[in-house]
């Protein structure tokens, strides 16, 4: 167990992190993600308000649709990343646990200027969130929802009954597998968790609880960002490769700053690195291959870093050691030979195409 944003979270269950990753890729993983926050925004001015605050285009969304977006400050830096759901008469915004309080304050303070036309409510305490992910996740949930889950389109949601409980089901996730995320009354959490596991056992669908370590390796392999790593209040979406999540045809907080960054060109870029000879991790320095070789030859081992790893690990499905790092644009091309300094020794690294694992629903 480990403390995480005020919650006590399992790094892994007795299954073990690597096996938990693999179970999710081959069958079903259950994720207890109640730490995620949910904000509900409503009122006559809500549509325009949400559209102005989040970076993605949202006004074209139909009721039920779910879309990825960023939350930027005026400097175009990433305060958080979000999933925005358009529900009947309200917006449902899923935020990261560690940013929940600051996101709520950000939305609330801006809503005040709307003179009562926008209401922002933090629904995190009364809402529980479980993710059910993997190639057999829909099959498992369909058995408990009379097939309602499987009828929901990718990046959409629907109100379903699962085991008699009212659930907002979003066909979304953070693993690169199909499946969904469930929002439901918090007091029903143990019941629904056990029900999903029991139904898996009954139907012969392998389904296991998954801890934080596998959640991280699943998202990393699938090329999804983790706030505080690939994106953060010190990183802009252009250098991180998230221009696609910003709608330059509308007005939004941070737009002017991003337009300047686009015009000038980013100073660094997020790249994927495949590493041999060690496990790259967050904070490790990245050097050019020439500098690393020269440093090794001079026996100083030192070489001027050109960047830093923001995440890195062993990827169980692709069986590779990989990192995400920010490097100067000139070194960001696929195939560029670099080095990551691991325990004081430069190890070979090559810029590779992200994601390492193409999400199942994009194939």
């Amino acid at each position: 167990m480990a403390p995480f944003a005020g919650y006590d979270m399992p790094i892994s269950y007795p299954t073990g992190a690597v096996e938990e990753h693999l179970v999710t890729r081959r069958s079903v993983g259950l994720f207890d993600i109640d730490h995620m926050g949910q904000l509900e925004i409503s009122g006559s001015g809500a549509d325009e308000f949400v559209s102005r605050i989040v970076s993605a285009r949202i006004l074209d969304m139909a009721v039920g649709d779910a879309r990825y977006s960023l939350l930027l400050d005026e400097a175009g830096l990433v305060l958080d990343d979000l999933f925005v759901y358009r529900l009947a008469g309200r917006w449902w915004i899923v935020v990261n646990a560690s940013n929940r309080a600051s996101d709520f304050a950000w939305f609330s303070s801006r809503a005040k200027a709307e003179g009562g036309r926008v209401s922002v409510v933090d629904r995190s305490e009364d809402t529980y969130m479980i993710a059910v992910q993997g190639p057999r996740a829909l099959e498992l949930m369909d058995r408990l929802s009379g097939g309602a889950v499987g009828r929901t389109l990718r990046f959409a949601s629907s109100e379903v009954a699962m085991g008699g409980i009212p659930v907002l089901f979003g066909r979304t996730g953070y693993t690169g597998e199909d499946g969904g995320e469930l929002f439901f009354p918090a007091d029903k959490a143990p019941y629904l968790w056990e029900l999903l596991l029991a139904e898996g056992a009954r139907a012969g669908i392998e389904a296991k609880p998954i801890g934080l370590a596998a959640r991280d390796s699943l998202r990393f392999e699938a090329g999804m960002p983790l706030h505080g790593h690939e994106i953060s209040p010190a990183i802009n979406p252009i250098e991180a490769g998230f221009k696609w999540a910003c709608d330059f045809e509308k007005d939004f907080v941070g737009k002017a700053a991003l337009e300047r960054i686009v015009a000038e060109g980013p100073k660094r870029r997020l790249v994927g690195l495949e590493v041999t000879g060690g496990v790259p991790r967050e904070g490790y320095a990245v050097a050019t291959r020439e500098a690393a070789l020269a440093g090794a030859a001079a026996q100083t081992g030192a070489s001027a870093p050109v960047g830093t790893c923001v995440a890195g690990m062993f990827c169980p499905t692709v069986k590779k050691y990989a990192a995400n790092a920010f490097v100067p644009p000139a070194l960001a091309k696929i195939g560029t030979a670099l080095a990551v300094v691991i325990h004081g020794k430069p190890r070979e690294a090559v810029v590779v195409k992200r994601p390492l694992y193409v999400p199942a629903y994009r194939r």
Partner: protein
Amino acid sequence: MKIDQSARYRASHEWARQDGAEYVVGISDHAQEALGDIVFVELPEVGRVLAQGQAFGVVESVKAASDLYAPLSGKVVAVNGALQGDPALVNKDCYGTGWMIRLAASDASQWAALMDAAAYAKEAGKE
């Protein structure tokens, strides 16, 4: 926690077991369990001479990297190459197929001075 009765132990959780004139070295069951899934093991080159207590490699788990310390002084005469392709052998069989290095000890008296199985069980039980 499994303990190999025939091995002797360092407080940093490496074990050494006599095998003919040489010693086989690995990490204990207690250590592999505390580390969690092991995803990489960095071992020294054959021929390297180690002093007792010197770092000879690194074991990387999903969670963290940990140094490995030589339980005995001596020359590395073999390393377990199988760990390169399957580092999880350390989790599966830390006293058997998950061994790490084989040492030609330069001072056999060092082995006798390590903790025996009973002493190590007591020591590891404190954690």
